[in-house]
């Protein structure tokens, strides 16, 4: 039978893994190998995907993929490890310390002054960025879902200026599955760091050690950081560090990155192994006595066969040999074997497959997991079930429950918007607004008293204070929304949303994983576009990037709040939420269009790990809010300030540079008036509105500051409610700001970036025209 047919709560043993290509390799790398025991925990509310317990962690995959995995039902629970652990008497091997590889004070260190480069490598969501922040004192953003880091980041270890640590995106193995995994693999292979800090989630050790095996094969000086050891010990588990160090042949250091425990010791060992270039003592994990030794003989034969090619290509020989057996195209290309060698190799592998009874990829994965089982059996006493996991199970009964998950998701999002726009954010906004008004009045009085030149007076009060001040007052709303989004992200809920939404998203041609960039898009389009790198399929990535601008970013909030305050203040929360919903609905429509016309085909398979829920870290949330507030203030006092001054100048002088008393004679009125006809069918043919919308391309908040300058605070008397409604719809849908377009250009190229600008402007124009037409027909026209 297949995994798809397994009943909820039942356990089974995997007998064969079907499918082909990168996805199959990914299954194997995630521990779905013949012999692995799985327990079906639940199905998503819409019946697909499913959530499994395997190797002590929760994995989700779709029924279509589960149908390719053959199983044999077993009775009872599926134990993670045989329970044979004994109190270890292992002496301390002392790896990574003076005295083991060389007498203390001697050795063959790298020359003084040479930078010790380190790669920080580990599985997704194992705490790499938390450790990076502890090591370097940086403030990188961390979150509780797989794939927060999508590109490499560098920094020197504190008090070690001779070092450079690179935080890499999380990977499950050295067989790249998504573009972020390629970044990590290429870094280790091509940049050749002096050392590797392999961070391992001690609470999920079997799957994490799979990557460790491959890193050891690469023969780079390395230390293993066993992160989250505090959780393991708090739950009654323990790890024989000395025993593990002996078996892996590299220093193993227990740490808690979040609590900054063990990090100093880790740094000492990492610097030592890199300085003295102490390579792993263990690289050969295939046992000649295990399963008849077929894999052992195959790997060693191929190792000798390709040795000269691997050395020429600068690849570690043992690593290259196992990748060749797995059929890794990139490595095969780098090795440039001739036809005869390729034939010989193929025969060796075929013989191994026959003798082992498994195909090549499964045999290699099985070899690695067999070694991991030996290590764990000897050195790991796992807690029966961690408190964090138990707590997550309880929470998930509601948050991913069949009948509760979607209502809870809608309620959570509704609550966030209500609290942001009606309670917390709005309250703080009115406080700040009154402060800014008082300051503005004070400045006006002071300038009048000082008999300042009218032009300078006008620039300061009607230009800077009106423009920048109007934007600044929205700071509390933006910070409040980011606070709630970061709480969702830090708690681990976003990964659940992906699980729950997968089936719905598949209907519009996307995978559940796309929900993460889309939700980030409510904060800002740029990181949302960047976070699509976690998606394994290029097709999904393109569609998701094209949809992120429809998720209304916080920079558009001031526009909505400004117009809703002026025109629809009785229905504030309703209209604000309605605009967000309209953005999402338009995005869904656009996705159907993309799926049907441009990106035909099916969404990528959904294979994702569900992390345990964690309490959001106050420090992390606080840091994120501070960064967002700082960033918003910087924008207000750079781009928006300049735009405000330029707009004020252009509306205060005519083409001969004479001051004007009526802004209809200004340069701005002349230029923008030429373009206003385009907006006539939309009901927005006022040159001041056109100018505001154009300035919004620089930064969305500029729309508000420009309006304040041009209308002199009298927007409500100059614009009709229908035009305000059209403007809201146009602002929601028209081109993303220049920063977002530049991010799209970096990810997809110039063609798509220009395409997005044109397509969204046309779409916004059409949608606003429809609103205008309906409004006119309903008798709301001026």
């Amino acid at each position, binding site marked *: 039978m297949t995994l798809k047919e397994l009943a909820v709560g039942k356990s089974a043993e995997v007998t064969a893994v079907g499918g082909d290509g990168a996805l199959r390799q990914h299954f194997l790398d995630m521990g779905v190998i013949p012999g692995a025991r799985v327990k079906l925990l639940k199905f998503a509310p819409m019946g697909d995907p499913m959530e499994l317990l395997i190797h002590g962690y929760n994995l989700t995959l779709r029924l279509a993929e589960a149908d390719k995995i053959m199983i044999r039902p077993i009775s009872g629970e599926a134990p993670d490890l045989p329970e044979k652990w004994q109190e270890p008497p292992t002496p301390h091997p002392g790896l990574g310390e003076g005295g083991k590889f060389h007498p203390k004070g001697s050795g063959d260190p790298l020359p003084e002054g040479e930078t010790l480069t380190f790669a920080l490598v580990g599985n997704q969501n194992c705490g790499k960025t938390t450790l990076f922040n502890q090591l370097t004192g*940086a403030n990188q953003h961390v979150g509780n879902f797989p794939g927060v880091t999508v590109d490499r980041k560098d920094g020197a270890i504190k008090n070690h200026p001779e070092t450079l640590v690179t935080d890499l995106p999380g990977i499950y193995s050295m067989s790249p599955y998504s573009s972020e995994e390629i970044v990590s693999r290429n870094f280790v292979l091509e940049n050749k760091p002096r050392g590797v800090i392999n961070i391992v989630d001690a609470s999920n050790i079997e799957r994490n050690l799979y990557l460790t095996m491959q890193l050891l094969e690469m023969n780079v000086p390395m230390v293993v950081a066993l992160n989250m050891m505090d959780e393991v010990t708090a739950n009654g588990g323990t790890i024989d560090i000395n025993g593990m160090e002996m078996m892996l042949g590299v220093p193993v250091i227990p740490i808690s990155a979040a609590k900054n425990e063990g990090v100093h010791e880790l740094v000492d060992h990492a610097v030592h192994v890199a300085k003295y270039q102490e390579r792993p003592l263990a690289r050969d994990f295939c046992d000649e006595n295990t399963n008849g030794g077929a894999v052992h003989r195959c790997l060693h034969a191929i190792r000798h066969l390709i040795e000269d090619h691997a050395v020429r290509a600068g690849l570690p020989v043992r690593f290259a040999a196992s990748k060749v057996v797995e059929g890794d195209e990139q490595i095969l290309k780098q090795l440039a074997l001739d036809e005869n060698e390729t034939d010989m190799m193929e025969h060796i592998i075929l013989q191994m497959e026959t003798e082992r009874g498994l195909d090549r990829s499964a045999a290699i994965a099985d070899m690695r997991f067999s070694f991991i089982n030996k290590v764990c059996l000897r050195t790991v006493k796992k807690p029966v079930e961690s408190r964090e996991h138990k707590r997550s199970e309880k929470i998930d009964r509601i948050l991913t429950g069949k009948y509760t998950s979607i209502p809870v998701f809608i309620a959570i999002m509704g609550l966030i918007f209500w609290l942001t726009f009606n309670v917390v954010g709005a309250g703080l906004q009115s406080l700040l607004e009154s402060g800014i008004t008082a300051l503005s009045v004070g400045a006006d009085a002071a300038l009048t008293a000082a008999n300042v030149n009218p032009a300078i007076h006008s620039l300061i009060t009607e230009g800077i204070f009106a423009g920048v001040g109007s934007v600044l007052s929205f700071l509390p709303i933006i910070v409040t929304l980011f606070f709630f989004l970061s709480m969702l992200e830090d708690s681990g809920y976003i990964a659940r949303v992906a699980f729950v939404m997968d089936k719905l998203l598949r209907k519009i041609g996307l995978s559940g994983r796309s929900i993460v960039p889309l939700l980030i898009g409510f904060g800002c389009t740029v990181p949302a576009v960047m976070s699509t790198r976690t998606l394994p399929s290029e097709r999904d990535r393109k569609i998701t990037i094209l949809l992120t601008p429809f998720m209304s970013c916080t920079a558009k909030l001031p526009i909505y709040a400004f117009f809703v305050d002026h025109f629809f203040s009785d229905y504030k929360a309703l209209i604000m939420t309605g605009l967000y919903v309209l953005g999402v609905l338009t995005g869904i429509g656009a996705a159907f269009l993309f799926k049907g016309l441009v990106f035909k085909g099916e969404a990528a398979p959904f294979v994702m790990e569900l992390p345990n829920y964690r309490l959001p870290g106050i420090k992390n949330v606080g840091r994120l809010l501070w960064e967002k507030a700082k960033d918003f203030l910087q924008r207000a006092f*750079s781009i928006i300030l300049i735009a405000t001054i330029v707009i004020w100048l252009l509306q205060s002088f005519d083409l001969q540079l004479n001051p004007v008393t009526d802004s209809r004679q200004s340069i701005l009125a002349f230029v923008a008036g030429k373009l206003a006809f385009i907006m006539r069918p939309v009901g927005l043919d006022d040159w001041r509105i056109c100018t505001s919308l154009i300035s919004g391309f620089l930064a969305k908040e500029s729309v508000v500051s420009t309006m304040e300058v041009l209308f002199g605070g009298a927007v409500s008397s100059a614009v009709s409610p229908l035009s305000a409604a059209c403007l809201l719809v146009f602002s929601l849908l028209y081109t993303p700001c220049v920063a977002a377009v530049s991010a799209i250009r970096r990810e997809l190229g110039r063609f798509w970036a220009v395409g997005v600008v044109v397509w969204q402007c046309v779409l916004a124009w059409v949608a606003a025209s429809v609103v205008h037409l309906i409004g006119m027909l309903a008798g709301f026209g001026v």
Partner: protein
Amino acid sequence: MNAVDVILLILLAVMLFFAARAAFRRKKSGGCCETGGCSGNCGACPYECGCKKDE
């Protein structure tokens, strides 16, 4: 123009200079610094746009 006008004009010019410099740096950083791409830490900017050199 009185002395206060001159002082205000100088202050405005200085403010504009710093605003333009900040805006230029943000443009060079590809927008990542303003959005959490590097959490405001330009030294860790994921884009190889050279903004690291300015910091």
